[in-house]
C-alpha cells in the first residue's frame, strides 16, 4: 500500500477550483516532486493533505488510512510533517523553543533531547543560534529551522513547500543538500517546487498546470519533458 495516495483530488476556494481531479501515489523512501508554476495548485494540494483546507472531491490516504477529514494537528501526529511555504518560523520564540514546538506532534516523546541533538548535528548553525529569537535568523537559517522542526517529528513523510523560495543560490543548494541527507535517513519526502533543479533529488513526480496533472512519471521522463525544457531551460 502506498505511503501516500491522492485520488481524484479537487480543492476549491469558493467557486474557484484550484485543484482538479489530481491523482498520484508514492512509496516509502521516495522523493516525490510536485513541480509547477505559480497558481498550478501545488500549495493547495499540500494544504489539503495536511488538513488545512477541505477537499472538494477525491480522497487522500496514507497506508490505506483516510486522511481527509482529519484536523491539521491530527495529520501532524499521524507522522506527516508539513513545512509550509515562506518557512513559517515563530519569530518571538527562540530557536530551541521553535524546535520544541515541533516535538508536540512527535511520536517519540520520550526522546526529545535525542531528537534535538540530532537536529543540531544536522544543522550545526542552529546550535550556535539556539538562544536567538527565530525572527533574527537569516532566510537560509530559517529554512534550516523549519526543516529541523519537521525532522524532529521523526516524520514518516516530510512535506516541504518551496524550501528554496527567496534563498540565495548558495543557500538553496545547501538546503537541497540537507534534504538529500534527510532522505538518506529513510524519511520520505514530498517536495513542492517551481525550481526544476530539485528534480536532481527526485525519484518521481508530477508536473501541474492550472490545477491539473500535465505529466507524471520518473525523474528522467520529467527532466526530458518538453514542459521542463521550455519553462526552465529556455530551449
Amino acid at each position, binding site marked *: 500500500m502506498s505511503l501516500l495516495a491522492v485520488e481524484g483530488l479537487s480543492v476549491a476556494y469558493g467557486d474557484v477550483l484550484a485543484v482538479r481531479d489530481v491523482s498520484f501515489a508514492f512509496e516509502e523512501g521516495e522523493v516525490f516532486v510536485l513541480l509547477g508554476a505559480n497558481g498550478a495548485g501545488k500549495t493547495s494540494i499540500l494544504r489539503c493533505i*495536511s488538513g*488545512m483546507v477541505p477537499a472538494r472531491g477525491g480522497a487522500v490516504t496514507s497506508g490505506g488510512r483516510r486522511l481527509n477529514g482529519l*484536523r*491539521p*494537528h491530527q495529520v*501532524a*501526529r499521524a507522522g506527516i*510533517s*508539513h*513545512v*509550509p511555504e515562506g518557512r*513559517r*518560523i*515563530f*519569530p*518571538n*520564540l527562540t530557536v530551541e*523553543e521553535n524546535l*520544541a*514546538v*515541533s516535538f*508536540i*506532534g*512527535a511520536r517519540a516523546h520520550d526522546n526529545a533531547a535525542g531528537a534535538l541533538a540530532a537536529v543540531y548535528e544536522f544543522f550545526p548553525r542552529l546550535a550556535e543560534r539556539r538562544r536567538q529569537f*527565530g525572527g533574527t535568523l537569516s532566510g537560509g537559517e530559517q529554512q534550516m529551522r*523549519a526543516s529541523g*522542526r519537521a525532522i524532529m*517529528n521523526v516524520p514518516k513523510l516530510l512535506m516541504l513547500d518551496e524550501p528554496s523560495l527567496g534563498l540565495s543560490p548558495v543557500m538553496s543548494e545547501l538546503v537541497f543538500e540537507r534534504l538529500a541527507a534527510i532522505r538518506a535517513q529513510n524519511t520520505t519526502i514530498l517536495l513542492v517546487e517551481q525550481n526544476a533543479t530539485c528534480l536532481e533529488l527526485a525519484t518521481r513526480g508530477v508536473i501541474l498546470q492550472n490545477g491539473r496533472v500535465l505529466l507524471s512519471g520518473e525523474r528522467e521522463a520529467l527532466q526530458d519533458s518538453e514542459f521542463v525544457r521550455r519553462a526552465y531551460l529556455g530551449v
Partner: protein
Amino acid sequence: MDRRARQFGRVALPLLVLAVVAILPALPFVNNYILAAIVRALIFISLGQAWNIVAGIGGLLSLGHGVFLGLGGYVTGLLFNLLGWPPWLGVWVGVLVSLAVALVMGGMTLRMRGIFFALATVAVSLAFDQLARHYVDLTGGDNGLALKFMGDSLWAMQSRSPAPFVYAGLVFVVVYYGITRWILASQLGLEMRAVRDDETAAAASGVAVFRTKMLGFLVSAAMTALAGGLYMQFYQAIDPESAFGLGQAIQLQLPALIGGLGTAAGPILGGALMIVLSEITNWGAAKLGFVGVDLLVYGLVLLLVVLWAPKGIVGALRRRR
C-alpha cells in the same frame, strides 16, 4: 548590567517592594486615601495580568474581558444580597458562570483571527451591558448593584478601612504573577506562544490550535472573574458601564500594554505606573480645577509607549542590557 545587579533587580527588588507595600497599612502617616489607591492599583494589576494570559501569551486581543469581570462581580454580589452567601463562596460560583460563558463565547469567537476576534468580543460585551441594564429588578439596571453594607465583617469580606484589601490584593498579584510565570514555562505556554506567532505553522507542527486558544481563554476568564469578586468587595458596587463598558475593556488592557505584553512583570509595572500617574494628575487637576485629566494622561502614556517602547517597559529595560 552585571550579574549581581540583575539578580537584585529580579529577586531582591520585588521582595523589597512587596514588604514595603505590606507594611504600609501599619504606618501612621499613611491614610486611607493612599491605601485605597494602592488597592485600586493591585486590582488593576490582577485584572491586567489575567488579560495578559490570553492577549500577551496567546495573542488574542480580547475586548470582552469586562464580561468576566462583571460576572465575577455581579454573581458574587447577587448571591450575597439575595441568598446571603458569603463572597468567599459566591465568587467561585461567579468563576464557574464565567467559565461556562467563556466556553460558549470562545466557541463562537476563537476561530476568528485578529481584528475579527476583537470585534466579536466587543459585541458580546455590549450584549451583557444590555442584559445588565434590562433586568432592573435583578441587577439594579443602569444604577448598578450595591452590596448590602455589613460594616467590618470578615465573613462578608467587608471593611470600612481599605487596609485588609491591601493584603487581599497583594495575594492576588503574587499568585497571578506565579500563574503567569508557570504558564510561560509550561507546555501550554509554549503552544500558546506558537499559536500567537503563527497559527498555520503551529497547526502544521501538531499543536491543537483551537484547544490551545480555548484553554488559555478559560484560564484567563476564571482569573478575571475571581479578581472581579475582589473588585465587588472593595468598591461595594458594580454597574453596567464599569463592568461591560468599552472604557473598562480598554482599561483592562493598559497594564499589560504599557508594562510589556506577554511578560509576567509587565502588568505589575504597567498597572503601578498608570495608577501613580493618574493619582498625581488628578491631584494636580483638582488644584487647577481641571477634572478628568487622568484619562488624558492615560492616552498620552499609551501613545508614548506605542511610539517609543512598543514592547512596553519590560521590553525597553531588556533592550538596555
